[in-house]
C-alpha cells in the first residue's frame, strides 16, 4: 500500500480523536438539555484565543494557559446557558437553535473586532515522529491520546458519580426527574459547564495544530454537528464512531483530491446518510 495513503489514514484517525471530543461535548448538551448549540465550535475559538494570548503573548507556561482556557470556556458555557438558553428553554426548538446562531455571529464578529482577522500561531513546535518511514505529528498524536482520555473520563464520570447518574437520568426523562427531587436547572448548568470544559480541552489540543482566527469555528463547527447527527443526536457512542468515519473521509479524500473536495464528499455523505439512516448510523 502507498505510504502516503497510510499516512492519510493515520492522520484521519488522529483528527478523529479531537472531533470525537467535540462531538461528545455537543452530544452531552443535546442529550441533557435538548438544545443544539450552533455556536459550540466558536467556544472552541474563544479557548484557542485564550491559549494564544496567555502563552504566546503574556508568556505564561503552556500548562497554566491550558488550565485557564479550560476553566474559562467552562465558565463561558455556563454563561451561555444562563443568559441565552435558559430564557428560551420552553420556546420552539428552532428558536433555541437560532438564538445560539446569534451567539455564533456575536462571537465571530466580536473576535474580529478585538483581534482582527489575522491568523495567529501559538508558536509551539512539537517534534515529528518517524515510525518505519511514516511521519506522524507529535501534536496530533498527543491530541488523539488526550481526546481519548477525555472521553474515557467523561464516560466514568457519567457512570460512576452521583452527578453523572443524575445527568444520565435527566437525559432519559426530564419531567420525571424533577418529581424525583433532582434540581433540573442545576443539572443543566453543570452540563453546560462540562460541555464548555470539553470545548476548552479541544481548544487546547487544536491550538497546537491550527492557527487561531475569528472564523476558525467554521472549520470544525458544521463538521461537529454533522458528526453528532450522524451518530444520532444525544447518542455518545454513535457520535464517537461517526467522528472517525467523517475524519477518515476527509483525510483519505484529501489524499486523492483537494481538501475542499474531501469536505464536499463528507457533507454529501452526511446528507445521503440522513436519508438512509435518519436516526444515526448506530440506530436499530
Amino acid at each position, binding site marked *: 500500500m502507498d505510504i502516503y495513503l497510510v499516512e492519510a489514514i493515520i492522520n484521519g484517525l488522529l483528527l478523529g480523536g479531537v472531533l470525537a471530543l467535540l462531538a461528545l461535548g455537543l452530544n452531552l448538551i443535546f442529550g441533557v438539555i435538548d438544545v*443544539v448549540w450552533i455556536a459550540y465550535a466558536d467556544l472552541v475559538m474563544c479557548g484557542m484565543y485564550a491559549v494564544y494570548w496567555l502563552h504566546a503573548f503574556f508568556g505564561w507556561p503552556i500548562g497554566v494557559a491550558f488550565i485557564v482556557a479550560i476553566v474559562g470556556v467552562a465558565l463561558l458555557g455556563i454563561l451561555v446557558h444562563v443568559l*441565552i438558553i435558559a*430564557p*428560551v428553554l420552553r*420556546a*420552539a*426548538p*428552532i*428558536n433555541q*437553535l*437560532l*438564538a445560539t*446562531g*446569534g*451567539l*455564533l*455571529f*456575536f*462571537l*465571530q*464578529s*466580536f*473576535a*474580529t*473586532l*478585538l483581534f*482582527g*482577522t489575522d491568523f495567529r500561531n501559538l508558536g509551539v513546535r512539537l517534534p515529528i515522529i518517524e515510525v518505519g518511514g511514516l511521519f506522524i505529528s507529535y501534536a496530533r498524536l498527543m491530541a488523539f491520546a488526550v481526546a481519548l482520555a477525555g472521553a474515557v473520563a467523561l464516560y466514568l464520570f457519567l457512570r460512576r458519580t452521583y452527578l453523572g447518574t443524575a445527568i444520565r437520568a435527566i437525559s432519559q426523562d426530564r419531567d420525571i426527574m424533577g418529581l424525583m427531587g433532582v434540581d433540573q436547572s442545576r443539572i443543566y448548568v453543570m452540563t453546560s459547564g462540562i460541555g464548555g470544559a470539553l470545548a476548552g480541552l479541544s481548544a487546547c489540543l487544536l491550538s497546537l495544530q491550527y492557527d487561531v482566527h*475569528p472564523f476558525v469555528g*467554521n472549520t470544525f463547527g*458544521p463538521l461537529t*454537528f*454533522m458528526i453528532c*447527527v450522524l451518530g444520532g*443526536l444525544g447518542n455518545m457512542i454513535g457520535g464517537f464512531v461517526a467522528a472517525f468515519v467523517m475524519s477518515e473521509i476527509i483525510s483519505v479524500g484529501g489524499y486523492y483530491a*483537494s481538501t*475542499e*473536495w474531501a*469536505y*464536499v464528499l463528507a*457533507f*454529501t455523505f*452526511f*446528507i445521503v446518510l*440522513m*436519508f438512509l439512516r*435518519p436516526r444515526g448510523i448506530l440506530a436499530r
Partner: protein
Amino acid sequence: MNARSVLLLIALAILVSAPLVTPGYFLHLVIQVLLWGFIYTAWSLMGRFGFVSLGHGAFMGIGAYVPALLWNYEGLTPWIGIPVSVVLSALLAVVIGYPCFRLKVVGHYFALVTLALGQVVLLCIVAARDITGGSLGMTPRAVGHSWYALQFPDKRFFYYIALAVWLIGLLVWRRIDKGMDREALEAIAEDEDAAAAVGIDVLREKLRVTVISAALTAVGGAVFGQYLMYLNPETVAGIAVSLQIVFAAIAGGVYAMLGPTVGALLTIALTEGLRVWFGTNFIGAANTIYGILLIVFIIFMPRGILGLFETLRVPRSRASTAPTD
C-alpha cells in the same frame, strides 16, 4: 377607491420616482435593501411555516455563479443563464427536499441537512477555483450598458430591476398568504400527522413552497451578481450568508409581508451606519451588534419588529412564544 389603495398608489409613485431625485450612494443602499428584502422574503416563505433552512446561501450562490460562469465561458446571455440557474436551484431543492419531507426530516435535522447543503455548494465553488476563482471571487466580463448582457453601469436602471423583482417577491408572498396553501402549511407546521390525516398532501405542499423559495432566492442571487459585478463565495454563498438571511428575516418578522424587507432595511442601515460612524477600523462592529440583536429578538420578540404591531391572526403555535403586549 378606498384609503388603502390610495396609500398604495402613493407608495408606488414614491418608489418609482425615487431614483430621479436620490444621490448615487443612497440609491445603492436602496437597491441593496430591495434585493436583500426580496431574498429574505423568499426565505420567509418557508421560514414562517417552521421549515427553517440554514442553507439558502446555496441557492443564492447557484443563482449568482451559474449565469456569470455561462456568460464568461460560453458567452451565454444571462437571459438564458438566469433561468438555467433558477431551474438548477429548484432541482436541488427537490433533490434535498423530497427525501427530507418524505422521511420526515424536520426541525433540528432539517436545519442541519440544509446547513450541510450550504457548505457543499460553498466548498464546490471554492474547490473549483480553476473556473470560479475560488475564494478570490470572480468578475463577470463587463461590456458596459447592455440589455443582452444585463449589465447597467447606471444604477437607476438597476433600481427599477430591483424594484420589479422585489414587487414580484411580495406578490408571490401574498398569493401564498391568501391561498389555501397557507392554511395547509400552517396545519402542517402545527402537526404533520394530523394535517396528513385530514387529507393535506404534506409532501406536495412542503415541496412546492420549498421549490418556490429556492427559485426566488436564485433569482435574487443572480440579480445581485449582475448588480455588484463581483462574486465572492463568502458574500453570496455559505453559512454566513445563510445565517444573515435567517437573522434579517426574523428580525423584521416573517409573519408579515413587509417584515423581511424591514429586516433588510434594518440590517443595511445598521451596517452602513456603523461603517460611517466607526470608519472601517471596526470591521466586526456591525455583526457584533447583529448577533446580540438576534439573541435579544429570539428571546424577547420571536415574531420580529413587525410582529409587535401585528395583532390579528396570530397562529396558535406561535402565540405562546409571542410577546404579551
